[in-house]
């Protein structure tokens, strides 16, 4: 009977095209706005670490002195980053910070480009499951014995080496030759959870260089820096020894025992640093946060987004109330025909189903149109406002979610009109036809 009802629904829509269009428009506008806000909310809420989310931890240290900000900072100092590497507890661990280079090649025709880069250890690639197209990360030895090696992204490899296997080739970063040891496959976690301080929805870096090279090459921080102490930073060595926060630190801990052991190790580290005159606050402490907690702590999804989703849902309800009125008018006009159908054997439930299928079809059309509205409005937001691309891409799930929400919402709006028409007394209309 479903296909029969579907056929009747389609005939009914064609019979009253203007009224049907009004209903489709009403629901599509509601869906369009809801999906737009929901998409932004969802894209901001994704936990890109997936199953490994509970094994990856960001380390935060309360290293600042007295009379300054009273909270755990999101970043750590270089000296803490350097020291934390000595812990034997984590399965993997890496300090990191953001920098950037002017990129050149041996090809004199190549126009130099400026690119963001990440200064990090080898473990970065294992920690964050970075896939490789060619080669791999530099050797573990490079983390302690600096070597001019670099991992580049697939995109940069296409730009610089025409997409060929460039492992072994030379790339010039700030005019210094680096040997390419690996090319990552397209990898762009969104949000960029490993460094939410420097644009949570920015693209992943295209260049990765060893952390051990930082003191030699004096890589400048291209990210946010926080400092609480007025101290000289005329030289790079002074900067490395300063209390300025510009590094991030991630560890991989596989089980609760490891987590406890690492927390204990961090507590001991703080005590040790206190003896050296650092970590002046009496309640100085260390905390680790897994990916989900880390995204929450950093309010990667702003509260405003939730409010917007709520408001758009309210707007959808207003659209549905309009639709309900239109449906009621449409269905009740059809009462004589329904009287005939009831007389010749249709039960109330069959008449109800027939109308619910029609409402569902209208909802589906509204959902598809709403999806187009959402796509258009996201493109508009992307073009006219400084929203990150990651937030304005229509998620795949929305292609299913939009028609589903539209159909469910339309069915809810259609219950009353369908019930009214199926419960009218057929005999009233049989004489009047």
């Amino acid at each position, binding site marked *: 009977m479903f296909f029969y009802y579907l056929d009747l629904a389609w005939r009914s829509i064609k019979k009253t095209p203007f009224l049907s269009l009004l209903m489709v428009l009403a629901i599509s506008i509601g869906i369009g706005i809801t999906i737009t806000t929901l998409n932004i909310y969802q894209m901001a809420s994704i936990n890109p670490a997936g199953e490994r989310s509970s094994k990856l931890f960001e380390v935060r240290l309360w290293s600042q002195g007295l009379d300054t900000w009273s909270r755990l900072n999101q970043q750590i100092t270089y000296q803490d980053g350097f020291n934390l590497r000595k812990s034997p507890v984590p399965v993997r661990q890496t300090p990191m910070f953001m920098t950037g280079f002017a990129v050149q090649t041996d090809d004199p025709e190549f126009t130099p480009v400026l690119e963001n880069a990440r200064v990090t250890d080898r473990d970065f690639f294992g920690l964050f499951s970075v896939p490789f197209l060619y080669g791999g990360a530099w050797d573990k030895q490079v983390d302690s014995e600096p070597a001019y090696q670099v991992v580049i992204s697939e995109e940069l490899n296409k730009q610089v080496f025409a997409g060929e296997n460039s492992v072994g080739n030379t790339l010039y970063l700030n005019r210094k030759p680096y040997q390419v040891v690996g090319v990552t496959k397209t990898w762009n976690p969104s949000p960029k959870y490993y460094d939410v301080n420097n644009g949570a929805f920015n693209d992943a870096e295209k260049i990765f260089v060893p952390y051990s090279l930082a003191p030699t090459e004096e890589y400048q921080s291209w990210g946010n820096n926080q400092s609480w102490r007025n101290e000289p930073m005329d030289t790079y060595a002074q900067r490395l020894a300063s209390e300025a926060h510009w590094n991030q630190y991630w560890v991989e801990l596989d089980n609760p025992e490891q987590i406890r052991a690492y927390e204990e190790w961090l507590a001991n580290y703080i005590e040790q640093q206190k003896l050296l005159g650092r970590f002046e606050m009496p309640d100085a402490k260390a905390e680790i946060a897994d990916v989900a907690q880390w995204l929450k702590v950093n309010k990667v999804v702003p509260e405003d987004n939730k409010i917007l989703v709520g408001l758009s849902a309210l707007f959808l309800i207003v659209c549905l109330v309009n639709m309900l009125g239109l449906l009621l008018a449409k269905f009740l006009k059809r009462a004589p025909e329904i009287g005939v159908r009831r007389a010749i054997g*249709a039960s109330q439930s069959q008449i109800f189903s027939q109308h619910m299928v029609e409402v569902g079809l209208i909802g589906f059309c509204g959902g598809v149109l709403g999806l187009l509205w959402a796509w258009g409005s996201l493109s508009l937001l992307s073009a006219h406002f400084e929203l990150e691309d990651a937030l304005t891409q229509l998620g795949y799930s929305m292609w299913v979610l939009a028609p589903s929400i539209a159909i469910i919402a339309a069915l809810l709006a259609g219950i009353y009109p369908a019930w009214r028409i199926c419960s009218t*007394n057929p005999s009233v209309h*049989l004489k009047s*036809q």
Partner: protein
Amino acid sequence: MLSMKNISKVFKTDLVETHALRDFNLEVAEGEFVAVTGPSGSGKTTFLNIAGLLEGFTHGDYFLDGVNISNLSDNKSAAIRNEKIGFIFQGFNLIPDLNLAENVEVPLRYRGFNAKERKRRVQKALEQVGLAARMKHLPSQLSGGQQQRVAIARALAGEPRFLLADEPTGNLDSMMARQVMELLEEINKAGTTIIMVTHDAELARRAQRNIQIVDGQVCDFTMYQSGERTIEKPHLVTGSQEPSNQDKVAS
């Protein structure tokens, strides 16, 4: 086949009670062709609606094929209407957006027949009324008489045990009316019980039995056999009873 015992039907509003039927008793045997006559407002259509399970009743018992249908659920009532009863209306009541075949097919759809069976029955029913060649036409492309024949085909497609016809010739000219009446007689001869409400005394006389309803009660049974008229069982309203159908202001 149809047995109504002491059926009464009262329509109530806040201020008014209207007795459409009261102490209504009727027996219709299988294969009968019964004409129901009576003045306007006498309760003929109410009787037909109750007989066709389109309306409930206030008091009494109604047996159809031996089944008491007093308290049937909507689904069961609909199933009985679909399987056992065929309706023919004065205004034809065809669905204007559906072609003739689709109109005739409607009750078969609700009955759950497969496409092949539906097609067979539609073809047969339309052939029976002489409109098989026009099955793709819309109702608006037919004359009134043809539309009524389609309505009869729709009623016949489900092979019902009895037909309820509410002034089936009321909207037709005399020639068309005669054709429709002949069709109904043929159907009756084939074994289908017919109850026909009509104002037309001439048509009523062609039925085997004529029942006159006055003020919501059966007041006269008349048998027509070979053109002879016999009043078999007068059943007049007694003086002690108030005229039914008269509005009473509720206290």
